[in-house]
């Protein structure tokens, strides 16, 4: 026990002098807690014990040094240390003549400079990222090459290490992130930093290495990319220009604004604001400031051009104040007062003000020619910003005025969302960068345009209709009728006979949902002109009706119950032809409605004769076979199982599903109001039963909560044949027998 505890200490030993004391004191402590040996000992024994322990300790220290010193450069085990100081990291001395990487190859692309094979096939489609351990680099004279690590870079590495991308196994890694902090070029010595990079254990000309830099270049010419020679390494840089950015290889990242964490700025919704155009930057080139002043002079109150404050009292943070003549404004709060905010190039192209502006929901007006906007590989900046060429700066006001208000509000929302998703924290920036690289390596699993760009509200509220092309399927294909049956053979046979009269029927599929009874023999089935197939199911479930059977070869499916014998052939044929004009909708006969019950504060199912419709019954309904797939495999939450357990509401679930994915309303055809068979006059099955209605209402409430929204759309129309009820000879009408109510 003692040994094992000591072992634990060994692992965390830092081989510097203080550590010895730590061990000594700790071991003494442990002994005290043990059988209390030392205090009661006699003097002559004490000498024994002290020598003994010294020997043990020396032995341990020696072993530790012997065993671990050579491994410690690569071993990830030293991360096991819980608490350490940044000042205590190992020091690495860089000889003055150690190798320097090549400058960097402008023609690098993923397929030329990146070793994709390192990432391999990965079932999760996630790259593995390794972080080198932190070292302190000094030159021959012991002068540090740079600050060991900045707060932001520490956060960044922490974010990567906490993410799914992280691996501590250098051999499994596909991307390597050095812990050498190059976020700000001004804080490092270029040549020595390059040497430090070159001596990394897996450097290999920088292949698959990723550097993060937000402030590139330095006076006087301020290059737009990091000046540190880096050979093939990828650069995630803030402030790239088209001249330095290697499209599809480098990643353009934002310049993090420290105000993001320091200032609490409650969200302000879109809409008109006090100032139309605001410039808040302090260091603006005099030429540009003249232009801005001219715009302000021309347009007066709606434009505000702010500058540095000159006479602030002591103790006031100058970064948090802006001035216009003698008026003092709080920054970044003042950004929330403006609709458009100028983001002008400074010495560098990337400006931290962009982040503040987005956060304030102010639409950035980016005036920085050749600037590669952050994450522009995936983000659609047209939706959140206005880019104006420097040459056109004097026209900025009129350019902005030509944007309609509706679009401005969308841009404001989008700007705020970009900040929340990709600018808000160092972590967001780091993960977005890795996601972009991940998307390149596994393009087939990459996030879509919508996933990158649509705010969550849009994502939830929007639809991505899979059948979006305006096509009218050819009539020749016909439809497949799917009859769900249990054991009502006589009624089933009548349905089959009736449906087989419909000209466009191309196949009939009977889903036999009774496991205890065999379907009738082949000879007993009605003889019809189209193929008839019987599918037996493993379990009596309502969802079997919506299963994507291989036997369905047509795009159109007619789901029909085994007791729907009242529909006429004209009615069904007309239904099919209506479906062809609306192939992405549910086309059915009796319509139903959902209503909001104000007293109960919940949804209510309505089967009365209303002049509005939001659902159709699937006792007989046409729809695209794709929805069978969606119902079976993509139904949200537990709805599918819930329906099977309750043996009810499968039609409401289908209505919800289709409306949710397409955003479109159902089409009710013909005047039919209910599926009432002529024989069963007394009770209309279950559908008039009060408890049944309550149950159906419950279904709507349940589904609305699972979907998180009410996707159903209400319409006031139904489809009838062109000449329905027109004063026109019946025999000349295409669908004379369109059925009754």
């Amino acid at each position, binding site marked *: 026990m003692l040994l094992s505890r000591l072992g634990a200490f060994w692992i965390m030993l830092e081989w510097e002098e203080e550590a010895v004391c730590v061990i000594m004191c700790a071991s003494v402590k442990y002994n005290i807690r043990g059988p209390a040996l030392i205090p009661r000992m006699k003097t002559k024994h004490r000498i024994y014990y002290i020598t003994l322990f010294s020997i043990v300790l020396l032995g341990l220290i020696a072993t530790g040094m012997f065993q671990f010193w050579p491994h410690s450069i690569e071993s990830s085990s030293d991360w096991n240390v819980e608490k350490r100081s940044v000042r205590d990291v190992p020091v690495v001395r860089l000889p003055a003549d150690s190798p320097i990487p090549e400058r960097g190859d402008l*023609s690098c692309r993923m397929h030329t400079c990146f070793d994709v094979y390192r990432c391999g096939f990965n079932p999760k489609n996630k790259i593995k990222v390794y972080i080198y351990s932190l070292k302190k680099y000094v030159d021959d004279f012991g002068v540090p090459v740079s600050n060991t690590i900045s707060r932001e870079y520490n956060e960044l590495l922490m974010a990567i290490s906490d993410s799914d991308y992280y691996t501590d196994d250098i051999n499994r890694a596909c991307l390597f992130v050095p812990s050498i902090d190059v976020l700000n070029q001004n804080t490092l010595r270029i040549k020595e930093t390059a040497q430090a990079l070159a001596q990394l254990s897996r450097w290999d000309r920088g292949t698959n290495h990723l550097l993060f830099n937000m402030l590139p270049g330095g006076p006087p010419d301020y290059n737009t990319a990091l000046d540190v020679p880096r050979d093939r390494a990828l650069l995630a840089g803030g402030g790239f220009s*088209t001249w330095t950015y290697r499209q599809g290889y480098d990643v353009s990242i934002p310049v993090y604004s420290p105000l993001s964490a320091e200032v609490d700025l409650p969200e302000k919704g879109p809409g008109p604001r006090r100032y139309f155009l605001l410039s808040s930057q302090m260091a603006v080139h005099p*030429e540009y400031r003249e232009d801005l002043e001219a715009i302000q002079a021309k347009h007066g109150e709606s434009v505000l051009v702010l500058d540095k404050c000159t006479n602030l009292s002591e103790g006031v943070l100058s970064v948090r104040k802006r001035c216009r003549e003698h008026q003092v404004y709080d920054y970044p709060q003042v950004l929330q007062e403006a609709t458009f905010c100028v983001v002008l190039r400074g010495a560098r192209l990337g400006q*931290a003000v962009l982040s503040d502006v987005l956060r304030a929901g102010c639409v950035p007006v980016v005036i920085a020619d050749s600037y590669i906007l952050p994450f522009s590989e995936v983000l659609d900046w*047209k939706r959140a910003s206005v880019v104006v060429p420097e040459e056109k700066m004097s026209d900025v006001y009129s350019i902005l005025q030509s944007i309609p208000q509706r679009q401005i509000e969308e841009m404001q929302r989008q700007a705020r969302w970009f900040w929340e998703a990709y600018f808000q924290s160092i972590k967001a920036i780091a993960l977005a960068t890795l996601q972009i690289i991940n998307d390149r390596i596994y393009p087939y699993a990459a996030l879509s345009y919508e996933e990158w760009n649509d705010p969550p509200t849009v994502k939830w509220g929007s*639809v991505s*209709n899979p059948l979006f092309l305006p096509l009218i399927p050819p009539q020749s294909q016909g439809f497949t009728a799917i009859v769900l049956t249990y054991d009502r053979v006589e009624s089933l046979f009548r349905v089959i006979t009736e449906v087989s009269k419909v000209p466009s029927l191309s196949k009939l599929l009977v889903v036999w949902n009774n496991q205890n009874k065999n379907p009738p023999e082949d000879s007993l089935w009605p003889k019809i002109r189209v193929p008839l197939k019987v599918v037996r199911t493993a379990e009596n479930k309502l969802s079997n009706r919506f299963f994507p059977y291989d036997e369905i070869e047509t795009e159109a499916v007619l789901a029909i119950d085994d007791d729907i014998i009242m529909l006429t052939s004209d009615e069904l044929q007309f239904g099919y032809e209506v479906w062809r004009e609306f192939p992405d909708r549910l086309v059915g006969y009796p319509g139903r409605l959902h*209503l909001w019950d104000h007293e109960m504060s919940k949804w209510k199912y309505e089967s009365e*004769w209303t002049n509005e419709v939001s659902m159709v019954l699937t006792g007989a309904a046409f729809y695209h076979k794709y929805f069978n797939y969606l119902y079976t495999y993509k139904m949200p939450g537990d709805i599918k199982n819930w329906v099977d357990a309750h043996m009810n509401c499968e039609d409401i679930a289908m209505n919800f599903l289709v409306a949710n994915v397409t955003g479109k309303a159902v089409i009710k055809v013909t005047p039919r109001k209910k599926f009432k068979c002529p024989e069963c006059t007394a009770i209309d099955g279950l559908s008039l039963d009060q408890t049944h209605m309550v149950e159906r209402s419950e279904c709507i409430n349940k589904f609305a909560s699972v979907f998180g929204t009410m996707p159903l759309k209400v319409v006031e129309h139904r489809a009838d044949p062109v000449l329905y009820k027109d004063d026109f000879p019946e025999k000349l009408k295409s669908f004379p027998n369109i059925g009754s109510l």
Partner: protein
Amino acid sequence: MQSWRRKALWLALLASWLLVLLRVFPLLRLAVPARPWAGAPQGWPRWLDAELLQSFSQAGELPEDDPQPPQVPRGGGHCDWGACFNVSKCRGGGLKVFVSPVAGPISDTQRGILASIESSSYHSVSPDEACLLLLLGPEAPAGECSPVPQQWNGGKNQLVLSLHPALCPQTFPPGQAMVAKASPAVDTFRPGFDVALPLLPEAHPLRGGAPGQLRQHSPHPGVPLLALAEERGGWRVAGADSPACPWDGRCEQNRGPEQTPLGATLPNATFCVIPGHRPEALHFLQALQIIQDRIFGASAHPSLLWNSPPGALLALPTFSTSPSDFPFYHLQRGSRPVGRFSALIWVGAPGQPPLKLIQAVAGSQHCAQILVLWSSEKPLPPRWPKTTVPLTVLAGQRKVSDRFFPHRAISTDAILSLDAHSSLTTSEVDFAFAVWQSFPERMVGFLTWSHFWDEAQGGWGYTAERTNEFSMVLTSAAFYHRYYHTLFTHSLPKFLRTLADEAPTCVDVLMNFLVAAVTKLPPIKVPYGKQHPEARPPLAPGASEQQPPAQDCINQMAEEFGYMPLVSSRLRLDPVLFKDPVSCTPQEVSQPGETLGESGPGPRPAPRGHCICGGGGGRRPPSLAHLEIQSRLPISQQIFASSTGLPDPHPRPGSSALSQSGVSHCSCCFARCFTNIR
């Protein structure tokens, strides 16, 4: 006791030395839990003094750095808009294109491009006025590649179009010129500056191949899963049941998937693998559109417009850049247009102010304004009826195409286009508007025509006769989106608009052609009370031998469009309870779904009364329902029903009791009913 302790200690000492000597320490390390403290982080350490770390940017450096003069772009990288394109040249007249004269013979493809530019709004005749100079890339056989053209100017504002780069490698460096090239290589392509075009195969109709036809709209299950494009248009296909192939091409030898004959047809496969060197298929105007987008920057196309039907070429950025302003994107985003409609009444030659019509339309709660387009030679009447909505009279130019001009006065998305002699009821207008809101990209009309192929004449014909289907709605009474005015005026060839002006009935056909060509969908018909005797009869082709040439406009248009865009429909959208033998009573239930598309997660209160029809209780058979309900009609309803006393124009056999009872075939009652739809 003490000796025991001593022994134990000595033992411990020995044991530890043994361990050291035997180097069992690593094993012991394994025995110790790898993470001695539960939950301790592995990976990047949590520094004790993380709080004390300095920010990467020193105070004063951020948020802004020192002011510096604007940088001059340095060579070595690639061109972009700011550096290599003079936008100021495009400021005046927008994107104007001048085509540099081509040396030597020009190919059919080039001729086609020249023609398409000349007929488009981009064309310019002067190189000085143009903002973009187009240089057609060489089409000649290798070796005869064109030299650097005149007016080259380092390539500034030049666009080099190269459709078949294989024929002639680049003979001069593009410099500052943009290159629109078919299947460019990633090494020379300058993203955001050059334009990538699809490459046309030799069998493509534009290169002299025969036109083909696709028979199937969607792949069938069971057909091959994967097809691999091979040299010279062949395809190698592999079925869905093929074993997984390693990606080194070995499966080809193992299995030998069937190979289609060279140049046969497109493979009927779900996925097609196209090796990098030669992808196939041309849209030159698309390239110009891309360039125009870049010039306009802020007012350019969002990606939604590029990627969803009908495509960016048909969504003019000069109209708007917000998708919600166009008719096409509402349905696919699950929204519907908000707002009201503008009634646009065209008054032609007779010059009678349509007073009754104005009253009926103004009675609609959805009417925002009434615009009268006065195209008659008669003087304007001195007084107009008093209406609750603003009424504006616009002076027309006595051209029929003028009625589809995007007048500035039209302030709403929806237009109700009317003729002076149209006759509608308020209910009909209300219902049609509700339908249009559900289908904002289509035309919603009351009167319809249908087109047909006339075997005898060997051409297209159309008729106003009532048939079981229709493909056009008359614009003398139709709802549509105002964007179609913009398209009509700015995107149709001038020839077609002149044709419509010369033969006024053609204007309806042309508008229907335009909408159908854009949407690929039929228009929508809503019920209409009576067939008006005044309704303009179409000059039915084949009706008489001496047709005026204008009657043939449908064939001229089909020829100009290159195909017949009209699509037939066999349905009419009626109110849900249209002509059902029911009456109704209002119930105090409000309907939150009124504002469709915007139904958020929470229900919103809507004050509108909602009606339940079929006898309130609804337990009676419908055939009896109306008898009892009559007495329970709200008073307003009874007055309305009896005062109008609408006769049923189409009595249904067996329901005479109802139609004689004085209760009209009300679709429902109360606020939202279409009682007067007969």
